[in-house]
């Protein structure tokens, strides 16, 4: 049953650009690309938030770092090496691993410090680090400061033209598929089990001989790397990167996506990212005052539903089986 659903979903995702063009809605392709990219970021956050119980309010920092890796490398490919040492590059096969390394290192540093606290202090300290990076990039005039960096040409990747929105969609979809495959392996590994055990009872896991701090830090780093990957892809989709990508409201939006999709459900973030971006796109087209409606919808979801969209689907599925 599950395999059938997966195959149907994959077929639908592969056929989406043709359907969109046939329906005369090419803008849908870009929307779907953004959903695929944000699904990666939201699922990364969900890994520590839903499975690990760590409420990070600063994950936009890693998203932004991934995007800036692509932007800065593009900048130096034209303007000469960084610090006269590090040459720029426009190859996706270089920028993606680099974005993973940069966001991973940043997550290791931020996580190592933040995980010494817990509860509300953890929420606030992750927010603080993200704000520091935000202001750092605002002040870097070389990279556009507040206005951000325009990436005139998207990265080169296996001779594909990433400016073409259908091609970019398939590339993003491919990365998302690979990402979710790896995430599936991680969540269902013994490491994933330890992480979920720590959420349920940290003291008991410690008593069982697992050092919670080290496991949490490893999960935090992986989660940061996932957001970095999403950011690097987003820079190629937008052909632009700016400090707004790491603004604290972006971190809030990522949390909203996770909650909308259903906390700690594997594919929840996909539904959450889709729900959020579709709502945003259509509400924005309907009225410039769309945040009012978005806020109201969000409030109702938080106050009156549990488990988000994935929970809703599970409940409907359960009702149908009965």
């Amino acid at each position, binding site marked *: 049953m599950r395999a059938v659903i997966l195959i149907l979903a994959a077929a639908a995702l592969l056929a989406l650009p043709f359907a969109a063009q046939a329906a005369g809605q090419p803008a849908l392709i870009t929307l779907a690309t953004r959903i695929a990219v944000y699904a990666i970021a939201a699922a990364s956050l969900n890994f520590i938030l839903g499975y690990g119980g760590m409420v990070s309010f600063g994950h936009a920092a890693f998203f932004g770092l991934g995007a800036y890796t692509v932007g800065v490398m593009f900048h130096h490919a034209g303007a000469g090496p960084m610090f006269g040492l590090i040459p720029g590059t426009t190859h996706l096969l270089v920028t993606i691993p680099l974005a993973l390394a940069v966001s991973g290192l940043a997550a290791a540093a931020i996580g190592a*410090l933040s995980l010494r606290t817990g509860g509300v202090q953890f929420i606030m300290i992750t927010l603080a680090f993200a704000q520091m990076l935000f202001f*750092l990039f605002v002040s870097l005039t070389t990279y556009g400061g507040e206005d951000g960096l325009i990436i005139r040409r998207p990265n080169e990747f296996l001779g594909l033209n990433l400016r073409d929105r259908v091609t970019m969609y398939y590339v993003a979809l491919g990365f998302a598929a690979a990402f979710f495959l790896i995430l599936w392996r991680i969540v269902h590994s013994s490491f994933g089990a330890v992480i979920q055990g720590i959420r349920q009872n940290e003291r008991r896991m410690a008593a069982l001989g697992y050092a919670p701090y080290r496991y949490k830090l490893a999960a935090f780093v992986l989660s940061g790397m996932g957001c970095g990957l999403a950011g690097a892809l987003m820079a190629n989709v937008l052909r632009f990167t700016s400090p707004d990508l790491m603004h604290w409201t972006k971190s809030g939006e990522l949390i909203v996506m996770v909650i909308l999709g259903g906390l700690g459900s594997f594919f929840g973030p996909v539904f959450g990212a889709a729900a959020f971006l579709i709502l945003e796109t259509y509400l924005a087209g309907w009225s410039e005052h769309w945040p009012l409606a978005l806020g109201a919808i969000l409030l109702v979801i*938080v106050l009156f539903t549990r488990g988000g969209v994935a929970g809703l689907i599970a409940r409907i599925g359960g009702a149908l089986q009965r």
Partner: protein
Amino acid sequence: MSILLIEQALNGVQYGVTLFLLAAGLTLIFGIMGVINLAHGSLYMIGAYAGMYAAAETGSFWLGLPVALAAAAVAGLAVEALVIRRLYNRDHLDQVLATFALILMANQAIILMFGRQPIFTRLPAGFDGSVQLLPGLAYPTYRLLIIAVGLAVAAGLWLLINRTRVGMLVRAGATNRDMVRALGVDIRLLYTVVFGLGALLAGLAGYMAGPIGAVQVGMGEQILLATFVVVVVGGVGSIRGAFVAALILGVVDTMLRAFLPTLLRQVMTPAEADQLGIGIASMGIYLLMALVLLIRPRGLFATA
């Protein structure tokens, strides 16, 4: 140079007491009710807008003040009754999200009513000049007024919390919520009183800050993050901690903003120095918070 230093230190104290007015409410709400209220900045904004509107209609700054206080308090009580009350027993994540949704709605409602343009308000009559504090140091009277009001509120809160029955319940609630309830105290009422008081102080801070900056959408979020830093640095639930942290962070932030660009100008071009200086100065309070939390993970004046 030293005159400039004193002037900026006073500006820092003025910013610090504004932060304290917000942080006092926020830390009590968190310490007693266990609720993270991101919408506290929206109450600050509502106070500023309502007071500004009333002042413009009546032509008097002082008639705007009670309107600002009332609007923020009423908005706060409504938010408490409709939203926060359902969140007491939820985890922090639900609270962050629900109050994040409230920010989106409050900002948009203000845009619908007043538009996006920042509104500049005038200083009240009698406080639009400056006084000679030291030879060569003329300081705006309005900023002195804010400092005085902030210190008066701090003293009033100290009396309220340490010398009255309500204050005793507040202290007891911050220490052990369940025990207070078990002793037969109507904790619901206490929650409402605390939330209303916090909203009132936020409205006061917003209205007082109006003539110094600009009344605009988003003013709440700008100061909200700084306020959260104050609450966390001071130790959640501690008014004393909030007061000390607010003054320290207010002065540090103001000093960095005032002097860092000038210092950086010694080593780089003015335009670059200004942007980098402002950027690093904005990071200052967050850096300070990270340092404090690393040394004292529960803040400077943490209660239990």
